[in-house]
């Protein structure tokens, strides 16, 4: 067994910042990550990081924009924390050497981004995330923080009181991908989950192959609710063949969208008569698909993003890597021709429920970054608001886990404070296929009976290790059955078809039927590769179970919420319904079944209450 004060799961932007903060606070901290930290998907972020740094801008304006962008589903205490802390955190990155682009006077450059009332998106060319990730990893090296590199975390060691809010997290179970060694990691003070987004739930995504929602699924199975899972952002400009992202920076710099008739449709058809191409992502994504559905798409699939008029010099200066992406992954020369683009899954607004200190309802268990939901982005994230989230909440979670007093959180977690029961009519039973059958072992279900919270921390950690060993053995011992790749592909296809930018009741129900079928298949899953050495077959099989949990949660939330808010659009009810829906969708894993409930949104900020306004761009 390995032992540390704080264990951070994941080495992306959020995990690195959390680890640095925990160490600053004096904790013995280690990162456990399935990828070497510099391989994390934070490196793919292009556009920039929002911070109110300049005269004429203020955190209040940033907060107002963020709340408006969230379509009033963000919680004010989280949003205000983000906007207040972001400027200092960005300067901190600069002090760590991050190579931001510079203005003539030598100050960090900022550019306009969709939904922002001030050009506050601070950037480093079109590779802000790469610079951020590497800069923070450098700080990790400087501080000598230990990294368990290429270790896959597959289970949390959590006590088993009846009410999740009474439970405590004592560590994690992970296996060394390189050697196959399965081991427990005891965390004396806390575990911070920073496992990133769930893009692999869909088949067309800007996310990496390793973005499988592991942290969210592990926390969910341990009793932490998932929050607002139905809110998935589809980025309007991804390359059709791979899903590789063309940054919003292109439109920020003046890039224009055209349909097959050569019309500038954002204005021409009134999708966003004021902001045009810079309207928020959901608006642009739906506009593009509407164009395609109206027969004005190119090859019936995509639209064109043109930046040629910006001129070679400006493109090379600010958007050079876009040229490489278009060339390498789509075979298009952006200096000479428009680039084909279409909406692709991009970001999950929802995730593990936390408060503004990053803590979940389980004591000692934290989450930060894309896997968490504080909630800052509500129903729609604005571009450039995820990177500040990583560093602001990564830092807070790290500090808090290591024992720093951050004051009492204003956001409540678990079934504490105000909440109401939810209901949704499903065509098939969601959740475990055999809530008490034999195969739950392979599915990751708990084998041991409840102790009612009476064991010692070490015993909980050992028990989690035993359960995980049983699961891995059962997957490896099975000689035949279905392989994860088949199940994964079916889930991804159904999700992209039915739970996309446009959602309707029948499609959502179909997705639930497909997911049920996939869960049944998963009962029969097996791992063909029997080697202990670098067994990616085993790893992906476990990831696929996580994808199933997340896909189901996204679909259930989408089916229950019959309104149009932010990224979530319902055919049957195409308007925002504040009278019923100013509340967060919560899903708890309860004896193998997802339980739906709701918690009201907090619109009361430090100094003012945010009044829901029409979100028009």
């Amino acid at each position: 067994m390995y032992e540390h004060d704080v264990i951070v799961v994941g080495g992306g932007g959020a995990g690195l910042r959390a680890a640095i903060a925990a160490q600053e606070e004096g904790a013995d901290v280690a990162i456990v990550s399935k990828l070497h930290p510099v391989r994390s998907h934070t490196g793919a972020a292009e556009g920039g990081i929002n911070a109110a740094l300049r005269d004429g801008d203020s955190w209040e304006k940033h907060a107002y924009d963020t709340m408006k962008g969230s379509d009033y589903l963000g919680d004010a205490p989280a949003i205000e924390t983000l906007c207040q802390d972001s400027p200092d955190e960005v300067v901190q990155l600069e002090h760590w050497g991050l190579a931001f682009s510079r203005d003539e006077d030598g100050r960090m450059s900022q550019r306009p981004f969709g939904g922002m009332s001030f050009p506050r998106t601070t950037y480093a060319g079109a590779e802000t995330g790469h610079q951020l990730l590497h800069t923070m990893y450098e700080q990790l090296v400087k501080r000598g923080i230990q990294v368990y590199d290429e270790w896959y975390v597959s289970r949390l060691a959590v006590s088993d009181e009846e009410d999740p809010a009474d439970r405590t997290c004592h560590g994690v179970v992970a296996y060394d991908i390189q050697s196959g060694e399965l081991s427990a990691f005891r965390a004396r003070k806390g575990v911070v989950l920073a496992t990133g987004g769930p893009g692999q739930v869909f088949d067309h995504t800007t996310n990496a192959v390793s973005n499988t929602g592991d942290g969210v699924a592990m926390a969910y199975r341990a009793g932490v609710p998932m929050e607002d899972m139905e809110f998935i952002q589809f980025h309007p400009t991804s390359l059709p063949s791979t899903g590789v992202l063309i940054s919003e920076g292109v439109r920020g710099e003046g890039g224009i969208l055209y349909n097959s008739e050569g019309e500038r449709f954002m204005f021409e058809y009134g999708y966003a008569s004021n902001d045009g191409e810079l309207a928020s992502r959901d608006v642009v994504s739906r506009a593009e698909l509407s164009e395609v559905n109206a027969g004005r798409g190119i090859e019936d699939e995509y639209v064109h993003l043109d930046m040629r008029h910006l001129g070679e010099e400006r493109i090379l200066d600010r958007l050079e890597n876009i040229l490489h992406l278009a060339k390498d992954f789509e075979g298009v020369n952006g200096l000479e021709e428009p680039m084909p683009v279409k909406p692709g899954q991009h970001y999950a607004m929802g995730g593990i429920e936390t408060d503004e200190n990053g803590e979940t309802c389980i004591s000692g268990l934290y989450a930060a970054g894309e896997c968490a939901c504080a909630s800052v982005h509500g129903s729609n994230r604005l571009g450039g608001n995820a990177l500040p989230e990583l560093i602001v909440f990564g830092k807070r979670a790290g500090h808090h886990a290591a024992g720093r007093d951050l004051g009492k959180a204003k956001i409540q977690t678990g079934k504490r404070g105000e909440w109401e029961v939810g209901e949704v009519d499903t065509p098939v039973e969601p959740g475990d296929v055999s809530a008490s059958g034999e195969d739950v072992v392979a599915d990751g279900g708990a084998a041991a009976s409840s102790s009612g919270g009476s064991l010692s921390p070490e015993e909980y950690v050992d028990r989690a290790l035993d359960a995980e060993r049983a699961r891995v053995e059962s997957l490896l011992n099975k000689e035949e059955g279905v392989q994860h790749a088949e199940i994964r592909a079916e889930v991804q296809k159904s999700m992209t078809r039915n739970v996309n930018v446009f959602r309707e009741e029948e499609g959502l129900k179909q997705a639930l039927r497909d997911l049920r079928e996939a869960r049944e298949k998963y009962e029969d899953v097996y791992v063909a590769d029997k080697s202990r050495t670098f067994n990616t077959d085993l790893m992906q099989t476990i990831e696929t179970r996580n994808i199933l949990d997340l896909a189901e949660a996204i679909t259930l939330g989408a089916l229950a919420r019959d309104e149009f808010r932010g990224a979530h659009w319902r055919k049957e009810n195409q308007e925002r319904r504040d009278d019923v829906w100013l509340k967060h969708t919560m899903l708890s894993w309860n004896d193998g079944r997802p339980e739906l409930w709701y918690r009201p949104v907090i619109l009361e900020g430090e100094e003012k209450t945010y009044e829901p306004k029409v979100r028009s761009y």
Partner: protein
Amino acid sequence: MSTQVPEQVEEESSADAEQQSAAQQSRMEKKRQNAAARESQEQAEAEEKASSEEDTYLLKVFRYDPEVAGKQEPRFDDFHVPYHKGMTVLDALMYARDHYDSSLTFRHSCRQAICGSDAMFVNGRQRLSCKTQLSDLEEPVRVEPLPHQEVVKDLVVDMEHFYDQMEAVEPYFQTNDLPEGEQLQSRENREKIKMSTRCIWCGACMSSCNIAAGDNQYLGPAAINKAYRFTMDEREGEEMKQHRLEILEQEHGVWRCQTQFSCTEVCPKDIPLTEHIQELKREAVKNNLKFW
């Protein structure tokens, strides 16, 4: 009636709801016709594909697993992968793994040349497999792990030594005086270090370098480039620059490089590695440092 709507009505229609929907119907109709035509064409193509060898690519992939009886002796496996336009070597490997042999093992994550996981030896050259179009390669496509590194399994190599070298050059920003707010940096200086900050730690350069193959302690192109990134950053100040040059002109540092340019040729991020190394040599001389 919908198909009869004349072209110019379509253009004027945006103001008029009724006409607009007529125009839309006409487009939908066109779309349906196009789709139908495309479908039958696609079907014909699929059949043609099945019958012609040209639409598959043959990959010869290196296999090794220390634990599996049949794989302890390295061997090459053949995979015939159906080809589509734009397909990369990584796409082909993923296809082979997901459809033929789930034990086929390789690192990959981002699929967009930014995570640096999938540098391999493809047709005799270090390349990022996600950034390499099959159509640019001669068939059969030979895929091997990076040379000069220990193979863990199939295409996965041990990166430990590479990481050690990267971390040996004090690869973090250091300065003696920090202002309260942001530090200023000139555009020119930022431009100067720009290329050097692009490194994704893929290890292709190190694997291609003869010197590194012969001298295990040689820092190697990537680590020296990392040091360049800081040495040339005006924000660190003169004193720190001096310190960095001292690290670089150690016995296994810049002077080992024999300007063979192999690293520069293989770097998927187009970093002018050899130039950077040469520039550091000149800086070292300029600073009148002693060298071996």
